[in-house]
């Protein structure tokens, strides 16, 4: 019964988790690894998470594991910011490429806040809970991320403008 509950929960949220993880990493394979590890950890604790918010827990694992991964490898090559987006991530390859390049210009912490707030639509409180930081930190990281996108990724603004036209 618990396996069925877990399966239903995982089936319902894993696409969203994978899309978030991809935005965090810019690497679809690593995103899948992060999601799989998060699902495993949720499965191991399903009995205690099932009555709470397992999706928030999974998000927390993904974000933390990603930051840990990045830190362990920060002296080696990470996803190439100038590289193309993987095939198939979007129906619009140009948008996928621009978004990927823009996000990879942010620090991992800024990217995490941006994705949780603006893609997962979490509140500042929910984002702070996932990241284990204060609301003030979420606000400042979000402002810094948006400012960096404005100055460092004008092509992103162009895309948003085009979508309005």
């Amino acid at each position, binding site marked *: 019964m618990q396996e069925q509950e877990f399966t239903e929960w*995982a089936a319902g949220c894993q696409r969203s988790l994978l899309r978030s993880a991809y935005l965090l990493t810019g690497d679809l394979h690593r995103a899948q690894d992060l999601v*799989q590890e998060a699902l495993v950890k949720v499965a191991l604790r399903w009995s205690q998470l099932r009555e709470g918010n397992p999706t928030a827990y999974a998000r927390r694992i993904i974000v933390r594991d990603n930051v840990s991964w990045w830190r362990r490898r920060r002296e080696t090559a990470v996803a190439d910011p100038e590289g193309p987006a993987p095939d198939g991530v979007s129906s619009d390859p140009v948008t*996928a490429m621009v978004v990927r390049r823009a996000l990879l210009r942010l620090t991992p912490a800024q990217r995490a806040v941006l994705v949780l707030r603006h893609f997962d639509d979490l509140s500042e409180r929910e984002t702070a809970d996932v990241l284990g*930081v204060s609301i003030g930190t979420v606000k400042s990281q979000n402002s810094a991320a948006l400012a960096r996108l404005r100055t460092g990724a004008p092509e992103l603004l162009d895309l948003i403008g085009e979508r309005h036209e």
Partner: protein
Amino acid sequence: MSDLHALLDHATDGIESPRLEQVALRTAHRRRTRRRGAAAATVASTLVAVVALVGSQTSGGRSDSMPPAMPPGLTPTVTPPTPSTPALEATASWDPRDVDDLSGAPARVVPALPDVIDPPSSSPLLADEPVGSAVVAVEERGTAQVLGPDGEWRTVPLDGRYPRIALSPGGTRLAVYYYVDTEDPDHTYDVTVHDLATGGSTVLEPPPGFVPWDDTGWSFLDEDLLLLTSGPASYAVSLSSGATEPRPYRAGLSRTVDPDGEVLVSSDWSEPNVLLDYAGGAPREVSMARTGRLARIVADDDTVVGTSYENGPFAVYVADRATLTPRATLPVVDTDGNYSNWALGPQALLADGTVLLRVAALGRGRATGFRLVLWEPGTGDLSVVSSSDLPVEASVVFASGLLRS
């Protein structure tokens, strides 16, 4: 930027569900099986009562005088074994006074650890020559040294009496703070966090309203988040911003942080006999009746390891995190009460389910350092991974994540 959501959505609209639920279930099952499988070999085919393992000392008390008395009314109920929770076969006791008779562990079982932890009398300053990370840090006679991945030590100068140190799980940060010094009118409860990758440091302060207690201390939740505990209060403090926020963690007999940064607290003697597991939001209380009140706990996803003498002779317990059903025990000869008080406890729970014990070397009638002993709960095998002849006054701390990996 109000259309950012739509743009991010559009940029990922081709990503399909990875259909990982069955893979995740199988992997979770394998991890449980791997950790329990060896332990299952020691489970009796017929049920042997836990009470048989713990023996008559529950009622008869201990011959040594070291364990603190439990408050009246808190004597745990011994849960009788049921078919769903097979009891453990009685295991022969180990006398840790013979720790130096153990053989060496298989090479590279903990790759980051040296065979001997022996900091030099002096080493280059961390600020001048950063090392990236450290698996172990030693504070001795007013100086801290960290051991980098290349086997080279670096010095972090200290400038106060009664220093305390802590390494972050990944070993990239060293926290230094000082126990209250009544002769120092300028004593503060600040912590200095040294970045082992850059050699730089950051000073963090307790939040407004902070009240110092005897047990006030700093530790790490992860590489960028510190935990300040002080009596009944605890706070998470961001290394990058200094921002603080209260956390609900209670004071207790023992506290640990699992590899995901989640906190577990073993309740103190004056509290109900439960383990508080703060993973996943609201704290979950798990009765410690089956193990006895656990001290010196460490934990991972599904396992808790700790020591207890409440249900019988002093022993190390490996228990299921969800239920605290024991999977394996290592009874320890504790004639003088030294081991139950300070000289033996889990240091780390490794990824393969083996346990790294820190055991003081007391074989010659006095402490001559400590040994890190690998315990395989399934087979009962014990072997020495690393040793140190540092005096007991020295403080030796490890990066828990590096030990696991």
